């Protein structure tokens, strides 16, 4: 364990919302009957009520845990001046995959560095299948690991399993940041993610939009992407990093190219991408130089010729023959196969592509894991799963289904208070200053704030993941890889119990 104790995780620092009124699930109303006795301030353990100059306010009512509260202020109020209601705005928020519960609990994690204390379902969404129907099963009673400190648990993932001349890279947490280009998100968003990746001992990908100079201090934590448009790809940028990602396809728009709308091509973006201001940019599909596994090997070899020590990651989407694709990727010499499931994020994609093309990650990953194992090469390549992973529970489930680690994207943005309004692509981009290149909107967010929010969320993820490991009686993430026997699918469980 000595190698892990060398790495020290940062501390969580309370980082409240950028906005005046954070959104919670419940709202507390205080009537005129309040006599400011301070009883509510005293009994609420969530810090909802504050007293200022002799007057009591439900200032942080977004922290209220609602009906599940063990000491409800409204029931203990001597004057019956408080009542608790569900926040109507909460119901208008979120969708089936990212429910309002998941959004608000991710905001909680980003603020506090731990999972919410109650009232919110922070484990699963409401999509009715895949992750949302899978549950982790554990032995009843104690495992004996409960009291071990979190530092004793090994959450590192080795990325170079070929044990070749390339860097022997290890990440301290079983996740790294997925590609989001300069242009699709603001420089502050990119910097926040990069700085958080460095603090957490992991990586973050540039996406296909160039490698801004501001990222130089984080070179050792950057994955640079080579995608079909080759925007901003230079020999120099490939030499600068430890991991290079070849992107063949993206889960949210498999088989389709990238598209940056003209409005987002500001002078700075155009310079970076060597393009014309105000004109939409298309990344074609596919690589017009790749029509076979042999052609693909040529690409991998290019990277290795330019930067012999670079790890090569290959990002693909999830067609029926994904297992064959994965094996091809291995034999072409890549170190990492990165599966991007069809329910992953995007800056802009046709809605028809998000839902209908290629299969969800939950089907593709076990298929690839099984096939690589049968081919006898599973331990020579790192399998990274991305596209639709929202919570530490999703992460544990996909690792149990066979991934070595995962890749995040949307969750990072939710930590920065994205609420999935789906307007990243239109006009000036994100009205909340996350996925925009508009100078004024970019100002809405400070990157120090963003960095800490992302660090906090991932510290909460790690803590929760370690808690799951404890419950499973495991001491490292490696023990969980491919342990699908630790999972149960509610649909099939129901069928079984119905039969018997």
């Amino acid at each position: 364990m000595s190698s892990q104790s060398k790495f020290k995780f940062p501390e969580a620092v309370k980082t409240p919302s950028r906005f005046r009124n954070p959104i919670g699930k419940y709202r507390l109303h205080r009537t005129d009957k309040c006599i400011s006795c301070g009883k509510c301030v005293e009994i609420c353990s969530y810090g909802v009520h504050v007293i200022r100059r002799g007057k009591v306010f439900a200032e942080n009512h977004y922290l209220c845990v609602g009906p599940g509260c063990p000491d409800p202020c409204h029931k203990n109020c001597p004057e019956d001046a408080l009542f608790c209601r569900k926040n109507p705005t909460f119901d208008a928020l979120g969708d089936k995959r990212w429910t309002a519960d998941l959004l608000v609990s991710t905001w909680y994690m980003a603020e506090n560095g731990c999972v919410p204390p109650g009232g919110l379902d922070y484990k699963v969404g409401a999509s009715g299948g895949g992750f949302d129907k899978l549950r982790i099963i554990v032995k009843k009673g104690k495992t004996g690991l409960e009291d071990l400190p979190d530092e004793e648990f090994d959450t590192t993932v080795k990325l170079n399993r070929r044990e070749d001349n390339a860097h022997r890279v290890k990440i301290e947490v079983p996740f790294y940041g997925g590609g989001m280009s300069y242009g699709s998100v603001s420089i502050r968003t990119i910097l926040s993610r990069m700085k958080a990746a460095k603090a957490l001992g992991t990586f973050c990908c540039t996406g296909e939009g160039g490698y801004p100079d501001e990222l130089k201090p984080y070179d050792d934590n950057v994955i640079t992407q080579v995608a079909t448009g080759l925007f901003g790809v230079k020999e120099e940028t490939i030499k600068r990093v430890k991991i290079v990602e070849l992107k063949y396809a993206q889960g949210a728009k498999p088989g389709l190219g990238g598209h940056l709308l003209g409005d987002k091509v500001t002078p700075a973006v155009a310079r970076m991408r060597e393009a014309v201001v105000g004109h939409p940019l298309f990344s074609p599909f596919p690589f017009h130089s790749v029509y076979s596994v042999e052609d693909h090997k040529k690409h991998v070899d290019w990277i290795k010729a330019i930067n012999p020590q670079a790890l090569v990651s290959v990002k693909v989407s999830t067609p029926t023959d994904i297992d064959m694709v994965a094996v091809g990727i291995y034999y072409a010499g890549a170190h990492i196969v990165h599966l991007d499931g069809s329910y992953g994020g995007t800056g802009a994609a046709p809605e028809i592509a998000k839902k209908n093309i290629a299969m969800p990650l939950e089907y593709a990953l076990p298929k690839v894991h099984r096939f690589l194992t049968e081919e006898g090469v599973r331990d020579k390549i790192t399998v990274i799963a991305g596209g639709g992973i929202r919570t530490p529970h999703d992460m544990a489930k996909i690792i149990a289904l066979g991934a070595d680690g995962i890749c995040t994207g949307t969750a990072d943005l939710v930590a920065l208070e994205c609420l999935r309004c789906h307007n990243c692509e239109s006009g000036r981009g994100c009205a909340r200053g996350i996925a925009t290149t508009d100078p004024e909107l970019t100002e809405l967010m400070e990157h120090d704030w963003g960095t800490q929010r992302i660090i906090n969320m991932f510290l909460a993820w790690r803590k929760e993941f370690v808690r799951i490991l404890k419950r499973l009686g495991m001491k490292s993430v490696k023990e969980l890889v491919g342990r699908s026997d630790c999972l149960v699918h509610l649909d099939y469980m129901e069928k079984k119990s119905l039969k018997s």
Partner: protein
Amino acid sequence: MPEKYVIHTHPVPNRFKPIARSGVIAWEEGCLRCAVCVKEKCVYDVYYKRGLDARYMTDSIDNLCMNCYRCVQGCPKELIQKSVNPEFTAMGDSFFTPAIIARLWYQAETGKIPVSGAGYPGPFCGPGFDSIWTDMSEIVRPTRDGIHGREYISTSVDLGRPSDFLLLDDAGNMVEEPPVLVDIPMPILLKVPPFGNINHTTFLGWATAAMKLGTMLACSLEQLSVLPRELHPWLIPLLDMDSLNPESIPKGVRIVELVKNDGWEDNLAKIKSTFSDLLVCIRIPMKQGMEKEALILANAGADIIHLQREEALTADEKASEEFGPRHVKEGIRSVHMALVDANIRNNVTLIASGGFAMAEHVPKALLCGADAVFSEFQLLIALQCRMCRRCVSGLSCPVDIGGASAKWVTARVINLFGAWHNQLLEVMGAMGIREARRLRGEVGRAMFYEDLDEATFGSLGSVGEGFELE
């Protein structure tokens, strides 16, 4: 290469404000009159642009609001809230859900493919076609534009009975005339829906749209009779009489539809002997025994089989012995396979109707084995129909569809199918398939929820003794 098929679309404004998913609720009481109000800081200038529709007393703010919540989160007195609009959630039915209706409205208004940021927000999978994922190709794709000298994607399909081979004499001339085929540029035909606040202006608009799109509109003989002659080649009249007088078939018509009633064989023979170049489509309901019926029709010389899902709107709830397969998806596959097994699949055209809501259902229906589909309720929704069915009980139409001009109707329908056609291209491009004809029955390039879910999770059903859910 043949001329490229392009549907020209242009924005066609709504006649009525569409119903928005959620509404802005802003109270005045308790307002602090801040020097700079959050409403003035709206990125989208919603509060400046808002207006009142005097006729319907609705505020346009809910249609303009882009849901960034900055005003909700910025107002110092928390006087602004968003809430779900009950009028929106009450729209449509289990098949045409509020979200689907709203997306179809958007396409009819703009002619554009819905594009948005952030990942897929919906359920893991759904009933029927929503439980199919289409395949994609990691490295090969034809392009929609035919750039780099590569072929572009063709969406055209043939209607009729193509023959398997041509017979040539010693001199190399064809022994018999090639079969009559009607080539339509996309695998979507239109069909007059069974209800709606519609009149001859609406028919004129729809028929003109069919002509401009190069596809056809199925209607009744009566509906055809009020339309100008130059539109007749784009109409498929339904001849539902027991004993048919072929003289009654208007000139210029290329396809007629028959109901499979008692006299159908006589009627088919009469038409075939009178007009050698007229294609006959015979309609059968999608229910038990349909495979047998389809075989009889194909062997008797029907050119097109129209497999109609009755009760299309509640297909899943009405699944029963009487109604046959659970979903159109299974119905099409079953008939397609029966024809394949009998070795006559290539000699007949199979068109399915009912059970389609969105663009993605078209390629999926083709993957299940149809040659083309009929779209019907979309013709109403393109005109802002809310599927409220007030017209069925004789009440007034909330969006006065009957009052719309034919020109507006045509433009809206062209927009919708322009967007659908583009979406079809997206799906085919991703699959690396460059001909719509090759989609038919290609189940190897489709992934079915039932298969994948069982294969992946079927073994994950037990919780051992002494274990519990985390």
